[in-house]
Each structure stands twice: as structure tokens, then as C-alpha cells.
């Protein structure tokens, strides 16, 4: 009798404990390739930091999953005149320290970005003044009409911070203090290891599903994949192509591939012969077997690019681009006066994928008689020397973080942006300049799309770049993870994610 009673009690207790732990703290562990640099949204503008910050801090408006602008801390907005935008703010929003969120915080944050200056302050270059109309209304006055302003305000670097916490924390803001309005509250950061966040129980919107979020930095790709495999982490970002092949089909693991806003390209120094001849640039575009790069180097984690903008960017042209046609390339080279080719250099930094691309293209170009020497240059030197135009050809990438064509074209192809600002091919075309300027000020989306379509057609025709690929990324997760949707900009919202 006693024995039975004892067993029943034990059973009841066990069920009770199991019930408690199932309903208890749910910790979601996410791994990315590096540690954040700072949690201050107005500090270093790097992806690993942004991926943590977007859980803690919020912006006035957001890029939705389809990259449309959707409300954030601003519930609505209106363009008053060409240079004035008015935002109605969400009421009843409080910062994690209990302070209410008001228009004064918006003014303070944007002024702080410009004063620091934040590395991403250029996103607010067009903002002249921030005016507090009343507690929940704020106006942003621009120095000149700037159509992509909303896309710029949606960038995580323009997040709203709390003045009191910034001033009280001083130099500790971003390392041991991070006070925002977002769905997760900062708890702890063990440098080089992980950041711990807990659910914001007072969140103004839909509260986060997971109670605790641990974001780890695991630099070695294979080890990050192994942690996912062994259940050490629930989600692992950026699964390497090699690990993707291995993990594909592994029981318990789901792989999620998504398109990003990144492109890779080969830039020509159009100031130097023979790249000053458009036929030579076109010839090289025809000579490169880009599909082979997609298949063998990226093993499908990329798509061949027909033009300068990745397909997800608003207004990106669905262009055919240049097909692989070595015969046509030879003809063009002969027309340009180089029937036997020439010798040149191709610069790359020590990024393994770029070095492999360089080697494959070296072989492709040898086919049409161009003798290419591949130069591998350390990153810091690479940026400096391609900025000053010492190169012939170079491989580089660009991320159109705002998903707006202005960001993806102006810095790269406008003649005022030579060198460091982004136009490392030193390309100049009056009509392209004119179109890129028009695109900045044109408010009507239809006209704006037409302007950018023409600009892209000209750029493809004139080929200051060899257009290579738009990249994709793969996230891996355990099969009990629900609610994860990848964001094309790479900083994924984890508030909707939970474990079954």
C-alpha cells in the first residue's frame, strides 16, 4: 500500500516538475559569426552588432519582410511639403528604464547621431532640423527634397535612445548599459562570448515569445554548424556552403535560404587604358562564366546578377545582363584594337571566396587572350589603394542596406563619389549623374522607378563593372524552432521565435 502511494506521489511530482519546466523559462540560443562591437546603435555600424541591437532598440519606421516601409515607433507619417515630414508617434511606449518615449527622444537621438558623429551619420545627411511639435508629434525638416528619407530612417543605426540612460551611463553606454524600447531588455554581455537579453514584459507591441535570448559569437563556420548539429544552439546564422551540403537532410535540422541585399562585382578602373574603352569592358563581361562561380564557389548560395542592383532592392531592373559568350568577347576585343588581348591585374582582398573567383576568372580571361595577374592585398590596404585608383580591376561587394536604389547606385556611379565614397571605378556619365540626382528628389514612385530604370540600363550598357552575383545566405535551425522569418537585411527579428 505504502509502496503504491509512494509511487503515485512520485509520479504526480514528476508530472508537476515536467509541467513547470515546460512552461518555465524558454531560452533561445542564437549563434552568429562574430561578437558585437558595441550595443550603442549610434556606434560602429556592423552586422553582428545590429543583429543584437534590433532586439533592444527600435526605429521610427521599419523595413517589413517584403522591404516595404511599415510603422515602428511612429504610427503614421505625412509629407507636409517637399522638405518637411511629420511623424505621429506611438503613445504608451516606455523605455526599459521606465521613462516614457516622446518626441524629445527622437530629437535627442538624431542630434546625437550627427554630433558624435555616428559611423552611419551620413544616412541623415539630408536632415537639417528635428522639430518637436508636441509630445507625440515630431517633424523632420530636410535641407533639400530627399525621396529615400523613410528608407534611411528605417536603418537600425537610426534607432531611438533614451537621453537619461545615455547621459548616466557615459562611456559605459553600449557595453554595460543599453536602454531601448524594443521587445527584449539587455541583461548581460560577456565580452567575446555572448549577450543575454530577457523579454520586455512591458512591451508596447506584441510581446516576445521567448523569455530569454542568448546571442553567441562563434567565428569558425564549421564549429557554428556543429553547435547546431549537437543542439548547443537553436539557430545558427550564415551556414557556409560547405556545411550547408553536409547539414542538408540531417534529421532535426532545418535550413532556410534567403535572398540578401548584397552584390559582388568586378570594378574596372575606367581612367586607365584599356578599360577606358567600353568595348573592352563589355568583352570582359561576356568572357566571364558567372554561372560556374555560382555553382562551384557559392554552391547555389548566390544568383547571377544582370545589373548593378540586387533583385530585392526597390526599382531593381530585371535585366538579362551579359551572357557567357567568349566568341563575342573576342570580337569586341578585336574591334577595340586588342585582337591578341593584353596583360593586366585583378585585385582582391584575402576573402577566400573572392580569391577563388579571381582564379576562375583568370582562367576565363586567358581564353580570350587577356593575361591576368591576381594580386591579393590586405583589407585595409585594399580599401585605401582602390580608393586612390591604383588598381586595374578589383573585386568588391556592396550591401544596399536601405533597400533603396539611391543607396545602391549613387555612391557607386555618381561622378561626385570618386574613390573612397564608393565610385572606385571612377565612372562618370553626365546623364547617369543627372538621373541619380533626379531620383533623390522625385517623390512620385512611378516616375522615380522610370528614372532608376534608365540609369540602370545606361550602367549595364556602359559596363563600369563586370556584374557578378547577388548573394544569398543560409540560416540553420533546430526543427523545434518556430516563427523565424529571415529579414533580407540580415538583422532578423527574434521576438516572434519560440521553441515547440
Amino acid at each position, binding site marked *: 500500500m505504502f509502496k503504491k502511494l509512494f509511487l503515485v506521489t512520485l509520479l504526480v511530482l514528476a508530472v508537476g516538475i515536467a509541467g513547470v519546466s515546460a512552461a518555465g523559462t524558454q531560452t533561445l540560443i542564437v549563434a552568429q559569426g562574430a*561578437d558585437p*562591437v*558595441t550595443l*550603442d546603435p549610434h*556606434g*560602429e*555600424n556592423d552586422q553582428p552588432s545590429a543583429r543584437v541591437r534590433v532586439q533592444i532598440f527600435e526605429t521610427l519606421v521599419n523595413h517589413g519582410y517584403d522591404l516595404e516601409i511599415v510603422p515602428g515607433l511612429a504610427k503614421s507619417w505625412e509629407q507636409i511639403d517637399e522638405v518637411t515630414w511629420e511623424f505621429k508617434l506611438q503613445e504608451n511606449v516606455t523605455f526599459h528604464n521606465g521613462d516614457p518615449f516622446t518626441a524629445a527622444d527622437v530629437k535627442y537621438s538624431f542630434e546625437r547621431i550627427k554630433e*558624435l*558623429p555616428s*559611423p552611419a*551619420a*551620413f544616412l541623415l*545627411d539630408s536632415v537639417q532640423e528635428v522639430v518637436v511639435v508636441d509630445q507625440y508629434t515630431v517633424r523632420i525638416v530636410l535641407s533639400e527634397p530627399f525621396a529615400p528619407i523613410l528608407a534611411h530612417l528605417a536603418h537600425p543605426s537610426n534607432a531611438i535612445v533614451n537621453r537619461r540612460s545615455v547621459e548616466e551611463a557615459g*562611456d559605459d553606454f*553600449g*557595453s554595460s548599459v543599453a536602454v531601448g524600447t524594443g521587445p527584449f531588455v539587455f541583461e548581460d554581455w*560577456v*565580452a*567575446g*562570448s*555572448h549577450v543575454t537579453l530577457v523579454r520586455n514584459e512591458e512591451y508596447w507591441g506584441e510581446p516576445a515569445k521567448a523569455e530569454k535570448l542568448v546571442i*553567441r*559569437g*562563434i*567565428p*569558425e563556420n*564549421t*564549429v557554428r554548424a*556543429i*553547435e547546431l*548539429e*549537437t543542439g*548547443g544552439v537553436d539557430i545558427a546564422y550564415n551556414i557556409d556552403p560547405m556545411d550547408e551540403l553536409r547539414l542538408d537532410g540531417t534529421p532535426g535540422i532545418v535550413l532556410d535560404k534567403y535572398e540578401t541585399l548584397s552584390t559582388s562585382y568586378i570594378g574596372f578602373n575606367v581612367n586607365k587604358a584599356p578599360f577606358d574603352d567600353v568595348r573592352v569592358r563589355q568583352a570582359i563581361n561576356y568572357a566571364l562564366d558567372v554561372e560556374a562561380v555560382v555553382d562551384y564557389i557559392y554552391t547555389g548560395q548566390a544568383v547571377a546578377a544582370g545589373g548593378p542592383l540586387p533583385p530585392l532592392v526597390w526599382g531593381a531592373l530585371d535585366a538579362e545582363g551579359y551572357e557567357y559568350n567568349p566568341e563575342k568577347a573576342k570580337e569586341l576585343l578585336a574591334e577595340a584594337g586588342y585582337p591578341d588581348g593584353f596583360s593586366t591585374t585583378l585585385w582582391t582582398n584575402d576573402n577566400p571566396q573572392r580569391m577563388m573567383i579571381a582564379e576562375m576568372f583568370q582562367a576565363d580571361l586567358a581564353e580570350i587572350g587577356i593575361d591576368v595577374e591576381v594580386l591579393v592585398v*590586405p*583589407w*585595409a*590596404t585594399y*580599401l*585605401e*589603394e582602390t*580608393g586612390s585608383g591604383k588598381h586595374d580591376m578589383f573585386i*568588391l*561587394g*556592396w550591401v544596399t542596406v536601405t533597400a533603396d536604389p539611391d543607396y545602391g547606385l549613387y*555612391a*557607386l556611379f555618381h561622378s561626385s*563619389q570618386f574613390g*573612397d*565614397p*564608393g565610385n*572606385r571605378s571612377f565612372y562618370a556619365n553626365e546623364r547617369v549623374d543627372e538621373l541619380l540626382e533626379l531620383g533623390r528628389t522625385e517623390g512620385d514612385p512611378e516616375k522615380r522607378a522610370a528614372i532608376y530604370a534608365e540609369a540602370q540600363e545606361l550602367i549595364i550598357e556602359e559596363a563600369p563593372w563586370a556584374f557578378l552575383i547577388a548573394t544569398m545566405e543560409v540560416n540553420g535551425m533546430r526543427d523545434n524552432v518556430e516563427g523565424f522569418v529571415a529579414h533580407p537585411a540580415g538583422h532578423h527579428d527574434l521576438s516572434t521565435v519560440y521553441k515547440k
Partner: protein
Amino acid sequence: MWRYIIRRLLSLIPVIIGISLFVFLLMHLTPGDPAQLMLGEGAPAHQLEALRESMGLNKPWYVQYLNWLKNAVKLDLGRSLRSGKAVSAEIMDRLPATAELAAAAVAIAILLGVPVGVLSASRPNSTFDNVAMVGALSGVGMPAFWQGIMLILVFSVSLQWLPSSGRLGGWQYLVLPAITLGTGATASIARLTRSAMLDVLQQDYVRTARAKGLRPFIVVYWHALRNALIPVVTMIGLQFGGLMSGAVLTETIFAWPGIGRMLVEAINNKDFPLVQGTIMTFALTYALVNLGVDLMYAVLDPRLRSTYE
């Protein structure tokens, strides 16, 4: 003895200043602009200029160096260009993890390397000796990145005994990185102990000890080992100094939050103050470990004590 220690510590000052100047020049003479690296590929010129100004990079290099030195004397190593955190705080955040890893690796190296070396020497050319020395040779030659991944595959993926990365509390996290980091040192120490012991075991006093009828165990571990240890202690000191700074690969593979990984990132980003501060820490650690080794000689060999007066 104390006078000796103080003299040694004072002699460190010019060494440290020399190293700091050398590192500073090296960082500034290689191309690459930290402001450009922070702002990325498409930074507007006016903003690059503003950032350079705010980071003090527009001043001549010697002014920048003297400013750094002036503050360093007051123990203020400046702030990291990227994170804005105090360099001393960055170092203190990371140093314990590296010290723990290096200490564990050296402990493994001593506990395994010394006995293996002694046993090999006491039975030269036996099967044990041959196996141990081939093992030691491959231990010295095995690259950390390969060995680390193999250990993870066996102990984390297949056997599921140990976690594969991180330092999230608990000794389990330390095991694989410590073995990976300690293998090279274990092998070197085993080889050195063996050759030192072989040398000592030929000495007259060992023959005398044996002739007196002492047990072989006492002869080997008390009379011989103590004398063979002097080169081994030197090696352990050097290894520890090296492990403190050379753990970069192991730290990267196992996502260990140590200082080596931080230094490599800082160099890539041209984060001058952080590089400078970290190298100073390494230099100081190395020098202090060496001083410790020198003092150990006096403990091991009474004849040397007079030289420390």
C-alpha cells in the same frame, strides 16, 4: 634577492617603451586608415574627415605617440577606436579566459609531458619510448585547427561528452581547447625532459646513488629529475608566455573569449590603442614569467643562489 628583483623590474621600463614605439610605428607605417575601415567601402569624404579628427588621427604620428605615452604612464591606455570602451577594460574582460586556458594547457603539458619524458629516458629505446617519442613528434607537428576540429567531431558530435565551443561556465568547456592548446607544449616538454634525463642519468652521482642501493624510483624521481628540470622549467616558462599570446587559433576554433582573438581582430581593424595595449600586456606577461623562471632556478639549484645577491 629583493634587490635583484627590483633591478630586473626596473630594467623592464626601457624594454616596454621600446616595444611600444616599435608597435606604434609598425601600425602607422602600414597602409590602411582606421576611419575608412570603420565607415566601410562607401564612406562620404566629409564624414571620414570628421571621424579622423575625432579619433585624433590627423595629428603627426609622433604627437599621437607622445600623447599615448603620456597617458600610458598614468595607466590610461586610451579607448578602443571601434567599441569606444577603455582599452584596460577590454583587456581585463578577455585576459582571465586566456590565462585560464594557458594555465590548463601548461598543467596538461607538465602532468603528461614530464612523466612521459622520465619514463622514456629511464627505458631508452624500449617500445614505450619509441611510441611516446613518435607521439610527441606528431604532437609537435599537428596543426591546431585540424586537431581542434577532430576533437570536436569525436567528443562533441559522436560521443556527445563535451560541448564543442564557448566558455559558458563549467569545466567541460575548458577540456577540448586546453587539450588542443596543450598538445604542442606536452610534446615539446616530453622530448626535452627525455633528453635532459638521459644526460643526467649518465652522471657519476646517479651511479653513486644506485651503488648505495637506493630504490630506482628514488634515484630517478629525486636525484636525477631535480637536476634535469632546469632546462624543462625554462621551456615551461617560454611555453606559458607563448601560450598566453599564441592561443589565437585555439580561441577562434572554440569561440573562446580570449585576448588572442581580440588582438587579431584589433590588428585587422587597425584599432591602434587596443593593439598597443594588448601587446604591452603580452610583453609584460612574458617578462614577468621569465623573471619567475629565473627565480625558480634558485629554488632548484642552490649553487645559483649567490648570483641573485
